[in-house]
């Protein structure tokens, strides 16, 4: 993003019919953690238009390689080796360069490395479950991991999360900040999940399902899934009465 002129316009209004609403009682924890009063709207100010940007220099060599970034020397994580790749663009289709992506997930058996987690599936001593990367000049990213397992959670008596990878995404403005989850093509668990179903529109759910991408598979090594991410677009100028940049 170094040689591009920074954009300073306000972001397009978020479509809150497309995103999940706050109150989705089938996902039980949302019942007491959802505001009851209306959100108060105002057009972006500088506080929302600006945002932190992170340099590639902060990344460690293995930050985007979950198979090896927690493994002991000479060892690697157990599970189906996959590459997850895609492009971060905004609603105008423009690549978002320099976007920080952080991701986390359970291991191949569905077990998270977290002290609050008590699922009986075993920890993998060579798998931590966290990674991060920064998109290149065209908005592309790529990381390597093992495919996470489904895991049970105390919501309904027999609720299981589909295999998923959590994504945290920074664009260029703090108003673009987004956390979401990526699911895998063909997983029948997707359509049973109360967290997935917090999203009202089937087309919006499908936007979270990564496609198996055989063209990017590495033969005899790892399969690939493609997951593109769309952040809010922005208007062309900060000041409506001064058409800068047009």
């Amino acid at each position, binding site marked *: 993003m170094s040689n591009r002129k920074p954009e300073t316009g306000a972001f397009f209004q978020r479509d809150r019919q497309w*995103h999940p609403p706050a109150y989705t009682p089938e996902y039980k924890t949302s019942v007491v953690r*959802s505001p009851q009063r209306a959100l108060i709207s105002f*057009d972006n100010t500088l*506080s929302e238009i600006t945002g932190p*940007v992170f340099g590639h220099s902060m990344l460690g060599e293995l930050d985007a390689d979950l198979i090896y970034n927690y493994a002991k020397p000479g060892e690697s994580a157990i599970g189906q080796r996959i590459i997850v790749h895609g492009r971060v663009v905004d609603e105008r289709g423009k690549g978002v360069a320099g976007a920080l992506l952080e991701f986390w997930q359970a291991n191949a058996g569905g077990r998270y490395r977290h002290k*609050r987690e008590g699922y009986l599936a075993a920890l993998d001593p060579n798998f931590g479950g966290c990674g991060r990367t920064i998109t290149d000049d065209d908005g592309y990213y790529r990381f390597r991991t093992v495919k996470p397992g489904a895991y049970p959670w105390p919501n309904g008596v027999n609720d299981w999360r589909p295999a998923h990878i*959590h994504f945290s995404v920074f664009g260029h*403005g703090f108003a673009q*900040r987004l956390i979401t989850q990526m699911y895998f093509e063909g997983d029948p668990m997707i359509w049973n999940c109360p967290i997935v179903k917090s999203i009202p529109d089937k087309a919006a759910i499908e936007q979270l399902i990564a496609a198996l991408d055989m063209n990017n598979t590495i033969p005899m090594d790892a399969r690939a899934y493609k997951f593109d991410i769309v952040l809010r677009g922005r208007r062309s100028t900060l000041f409506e009465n001064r058409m800068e940049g047009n």
Partner: protein
Amino acid sequence: MVQQLGYLKETPSQTAGPYVHIGCTPNFAEITGVYENDLGISMVNDKTLGERISLRGRVFDGTGTPLRDALLEIWQADSKGLYNSPSELRGSADPNFTGWGRCPTDMETAEYRFETVKPGQVPFKDGRMMAPHVTVWIVARGINIGLQTRIYFDDEKEANDKDPILQRIEHRNRVPTLIAKRDGSSYVFDIYLQGDKETIFFDV
């Protein structure tokens, strides 16, 4: 038929879940040796300009129970009112201040705490000055899309009274939910997700 606008739809949000720490603050989650430090744990250094303050508080659910699994991020201007962002065209922000911080609520006490500086004033789009404020973004298990609010300061009454965002809040009795209370060198800002004391959240 008319021409297609061709805009894409934003990727829909999903909850950060109870294990957000694994990805965002792995050292806090006791996953060590992957990243040297958790991102956003430090906003200032010895050379940072401005008045040092801390911001602390808790986040409560609709039953009055504090969240022990929330993650907060803040974004603010430096002491002179400039943002450390490429989209800041009014000047260069203090290079010793990141403007961005991230803090999980404590798994025992439920408290969050940021060591930062008091922000300077930033103009609204019509040129009026906004009162000093900090933008807050909250995610947690049970929160389907991040909640955005602002922290204002109780010792900035004059500026708060003129703030263009605070002025447009119809229900004046809710404005105090956005005002942090000074306690020595720190400000206390508790967040109520739901109920009688519900904090104002923004759609911006």
